């Protein structure tokens, strides 16, 4: 038979028809010409003549082209048709594929919209979370060569002291001896009141050794840092201001450099202003020189930061610091009788890790969660594309017939997938942009550097990478499938949505994977939610509602004597008590969730610690008589403090239940005596009361030993005023400020907040992570439900004949329903089984985020599996119902 296609194709080419349409016309017309040719031959025409006559019908004039041009779809945007001709240059193919891909996507707006939306959610979530990870965990600190900045500290886990700061003498020794550090600085953070030029204000002040700024590698914007001699006793008071304070308080006036301000009640000369963005220690607003006492061993309060010599590793520095500390202790046997080589333990960490702190684990978990969501979404899209590939198998076959190579077709389909992924990424970036702004606003969640989160080139590169991976993930299977299409089959089936065994297995596999991944996410979210529930149920040992607290700091320059401090606070308490709406008022040097736990050693009369056993540590705080009523901590046994527990009365103390149970199990602690120093001059304190254990740092803290001393017997300059009110406590704030100002107008009142805010604040990060993880898990389940629904729908459509025949042969609709449901549920169950195993292994990484539940919590695991099973059943029910309505007659007629 002659070949007509070349001539016909030449006639059709100018029309720019879609490849499918063009192939159809080619087929039809060449058949006609075949018939005509045969007819002519049978009439006795010679081969060449028959061929010429037949062809003349098309090639005599340009009539065919003209006629068709008037009828066929107005030429689509581009005239290139895929699969025509054989291989040409690669670049041309790509553009052609791209244009064709765009056209295909525009032809199916519903499919395209669903796919792009799914991808946008997946890619958007990944981009948003990665931008947080990038800014918080990955991006270097804004200091030159910041990877060489290292912090180190001692550690004593056996005393439950994970972090032990250094005393002056040890730091001085390390500073002299260290060979791994180029420079070493120490700092101690605190607060100071800033007075004059505006309301008195408490600022975060850090005392730093003079070369602190040199270690950090940052020069002041104006003026200078500290010089060595400013780190010695008796020098004039100087300070360096943070950019924020300088702007807020001094109106960005550079002439402030060299002038005195009033800091902590003392005139202090400003010598420098730091540039914006210099934020170390975190939140520092003012830096003052730290005066070290080379002999000092009593106060273990110094934090460190050092700049490593180039090429030195953090572990080397850690080893050196531990060795030097051993040596330091061995040199002072009187002070460290137990010291031996290898006993000192030090931890050195890159400064960035220290800044990031505990945010690492939850952020990585979230990143893992969004990756799973994207995987599930990709599986859905792969299934959609597989279904479409089946529906388009005729198109592919026709293309094959007219000369497109399988590789060419696979490339075309992959281009379409990548195009989809690209569109999803574009929409996802919008979502991420919005999500990042939302996250950045959540400043109360205590994730460091969260305010610096932004979409930068690294994030965009990540997004592009994720997009390509996702596009390949969901595009590869359908592309390979389509390129292996069986021409005979595909053409014979005449476009029926048939699914081959291989593709059905693949599709089923995707459903299994989706359910497994969804289960893992849901289990993770479930465990966190249960932990949260447990945390909310924790009795903190106080009643947070209707309590207002405010921090007050008396400057020692003005209140030099303890008597002055006692007198001031007595008048303040009296004044506040008289405010209408105030039920009770008290003082404590620390309130729960305000940070910091003053710790001391505990010695119990008559109960010596065994040799070698660590001396127990106890959190110690003072309190006025009204404190317990104000914070809502009941006295369980004995009495609270009274006004008579003053400086002239015998020392008394209230301990918490944990101490009572540890030292006098079953006995009566009242009347027993304890002290906080071995020093024989320290007086024994008699226990007069027992308080419940109070959560001071966080709701999930372990049990600690706690003691309270009467304020009058243990005066502190800095205290929190604690007020329980009958009305909304926040409305009292202005009144309280006024009452304080009445007594001393230069006194800053800071950290004014309610206890409810403090408790909520301590849970904010957790709440945020819970919300995000739950959101991602719900999204995953939704996608999995859509996935199984789609697969079952397609399967039912393909088997409608079979169901019809079953019904015709007497099967009850319920049987068909059960058949379909069973098929779907088996897939879901397989997924759940895989997911349970995966979750059992993965949940251990939730670590400290769990509270009150074990990583393999049967309630959560089974509950989540049941929920997912129900979701699967619901998703399969609709297709199953459709199967029961299969028409037996139609089925029989069709076959």
């Amino acid at each position, binding site marked *: 038979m002659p070949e007509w296609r070349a001539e016909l194709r030449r006639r059709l080419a100018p029309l720019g028809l879609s490849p499918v349409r063009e192939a*159809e*016309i080619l*087929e*039809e*017309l060449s*058949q*006609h*010409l075949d*018939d*005509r040719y045969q007819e002519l031959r049978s009439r006795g025409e010679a081969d060449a003549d028959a061929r010429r006559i037949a062809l003349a*019908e*098309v090639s*005599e*004039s340009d*009539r*065919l082209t003209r*006629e*068709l041009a*008037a*009828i*066929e779809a107005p030429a689509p945007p581009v005239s290139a048709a895929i699969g025509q001709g054989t291989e040409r240059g690669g670049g041309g193919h790509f553009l052609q594929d791209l244009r064709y891909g765009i056209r295909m996507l525009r032809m199916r707006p519903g499919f395209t919209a669903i796919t792009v939306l799914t991808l946008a959610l997946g890619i958007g979530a990944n981009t948003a979370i990665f931008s947080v990870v990038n800014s918080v965990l990955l991006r270097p600190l804004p200091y030159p060569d910041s990877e060489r900045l290292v912090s180190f500290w001692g550690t004593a886990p056996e005393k439950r002291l994970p972090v032990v700061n250094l005393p002056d003498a040890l730091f001085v020794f390390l500073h002299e001896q260290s060979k791994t550090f180029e420079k070493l600085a120490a700092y101690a953070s605190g607060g100071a009141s800033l007075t004059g030029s505006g309301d008195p204000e408490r600022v975060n002040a850090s005392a730093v050794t003079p070369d602190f700024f040199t270690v950090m590698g940052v020069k002041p914007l104006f003026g200078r840092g500290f010089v060595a001699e400013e780190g010695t006793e008796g020098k004039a008071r100087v300070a360096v201001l943070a950019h924020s304070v300088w702007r807020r308080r001094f109106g960005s006036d550079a002439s402030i450099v060299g002038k005195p301000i009033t800091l902590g009640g003392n005139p202090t000369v400003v010598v420098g202003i730091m540039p914006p963005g210099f934020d170390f220690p975190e939140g520092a607003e003012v830096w003052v020189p730290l005066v070290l006492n080379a002999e000092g061993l009593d106060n273990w309060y110094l934090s460190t930061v050092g700049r490593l010599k180039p090429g030195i590793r953090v572990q080397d520095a850690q080893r050196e610091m531990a060795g030097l500390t051993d040596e330091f202790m061995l040199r002072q046997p009187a002070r460290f009788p137990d010291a031996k080589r290898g006993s000192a333990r030090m931890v050195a960490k890159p400064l960035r890790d220290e800044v990031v702190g505990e945010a690492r684990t939850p952020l990585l978990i979230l990143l893992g969660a969004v990756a799973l969501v994207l995987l599930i979404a990709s599986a859905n899209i792969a299934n959609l594309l597989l279904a479409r590939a089946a529906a388009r198998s005729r198109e592919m076959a026709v293309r094959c017939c007219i000369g497109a190579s399988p590789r060419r077709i696979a490339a075309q389909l992959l281009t379409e997938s990548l195009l989809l992924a690209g569109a999803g990424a574009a929409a996802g970036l919008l979502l991420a942009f919005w999500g990042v702004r939302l996250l950045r606003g959540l400043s109360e969640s205590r994730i460091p550097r969260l305010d610096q989160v932004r979409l930068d080139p690294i994030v965009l590169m990540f997004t592009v990478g994720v997009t390509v991976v996702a596009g390949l993930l969901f595009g590869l299977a359908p592309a390979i499938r389509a390129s292996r299409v069986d021409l005979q089959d595909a*053409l*014979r089936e*005449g476009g029926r949505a048939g699914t081959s065994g291989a593709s059905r297995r693949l599709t089923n596999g995707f459903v299994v994977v989706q359910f497994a991944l969804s289960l893992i996410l849901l289990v993770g979210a479930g465990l966190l939610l249960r932990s949260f529930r447990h945390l909310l149920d924790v009795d903190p040992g106080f009643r947070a509602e209707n309590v207002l607290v405010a921090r007050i700091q008396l400057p020692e320059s003005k209140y030099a004597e303890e008597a002055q401090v006692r007198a001031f606070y007595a008048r303040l308490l009296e004044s506040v008590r008289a405010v209408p709406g105030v039920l009770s008022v008290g003082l404590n040097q620390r309130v729960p969730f305000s940070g910091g736990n003053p710790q001391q050693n505990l010695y119990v009369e008559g109960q010596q610690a065994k040799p070698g056993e660590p001396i127990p540590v106890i959190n110690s705080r003072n309190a006025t008589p009204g404190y317990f009523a104000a914070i809502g901590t009941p006295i369980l046994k004995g009495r609270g403090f009274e006004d008579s527990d003053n400086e002239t009365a015998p020392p008394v103390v209230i301990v918490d239940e944990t101490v009572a149970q540890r030292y006098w199990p079953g006995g009566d602690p009242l009347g027993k005596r304890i002290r906080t120093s071995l020093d024989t001059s320290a007086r024994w304190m008699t226990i007069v009361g027992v308080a419940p254990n109070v959560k001071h740092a966080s709701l999930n803290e372990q049990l600690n030993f706690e003691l309270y001393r009467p304020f009058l017997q243990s005066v502190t300059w800095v205290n929190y005023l604690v007020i329980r009110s009958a009305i909304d406590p926040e409305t009292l704030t202005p009144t309280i400020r006024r009452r304080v100002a009445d007594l001393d107008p230069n006194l800053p009142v800071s950290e004014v907040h309610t206890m409810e805010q403090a408790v909520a604040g301590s849970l904010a990060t957790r709440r945020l992570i819970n919300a995000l993880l739950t959101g991602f898990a719900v999204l995953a389940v939704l996608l999995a439900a859509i996935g199984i629904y789609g697969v079952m729908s397609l399967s039912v459509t393909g088997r409608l004949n079979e169901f019809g025949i079953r019904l015709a042969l007497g099967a009850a609709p319920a049987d068909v329903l059960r058949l379909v449901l069973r098929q779907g549920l088996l897939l879901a169950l397989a997924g759940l089984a895989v997911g349970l195993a995966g979750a059992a292994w993965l949940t251990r990484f939730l670590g400290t985020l769990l509270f009150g539940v074990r990583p393999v919590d049967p309630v959560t695991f089974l509950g989540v599996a049941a929920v997912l099973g129900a979701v699967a059943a619901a998703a399969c029910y609709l297709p199953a119902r459709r199967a029961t309505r299969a028409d037996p007659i139609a089925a029989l007629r069709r076959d």
Partner: protein
Amino acid sequence: MPDREWKKGSAELLLLSLLEHEPRHGYELNKLIESRSRGVLRYHVASLYPLLYRLERRGWIDGRWVEKAGQRRRRYYRLTPDGKRVLAAQRRSWTAFAQAISRIAGVQHA
């Protein structure tokens, strides 16, 4: 051979009426037209198929690929309900037209 315009005007009616009772493919249609007109009418590929596609696009006929044992698949066209209505209307107007022509020109109606 009649004028081209004649042929074009009548072609729609011819095709629709040939499809009235059963689906046929393009080659068959052409053969039928040729034989029933005793060789007077015959369409070229270049005009027959564009015409079929136009009728299909208007929704008067419907083309479907059909396979028969031992044959290549072929595209069969059948009349749609719309096509039936159009056919009836065209028949009426052709009849009226032909009668008018014969009354004026004295041509004997075939």
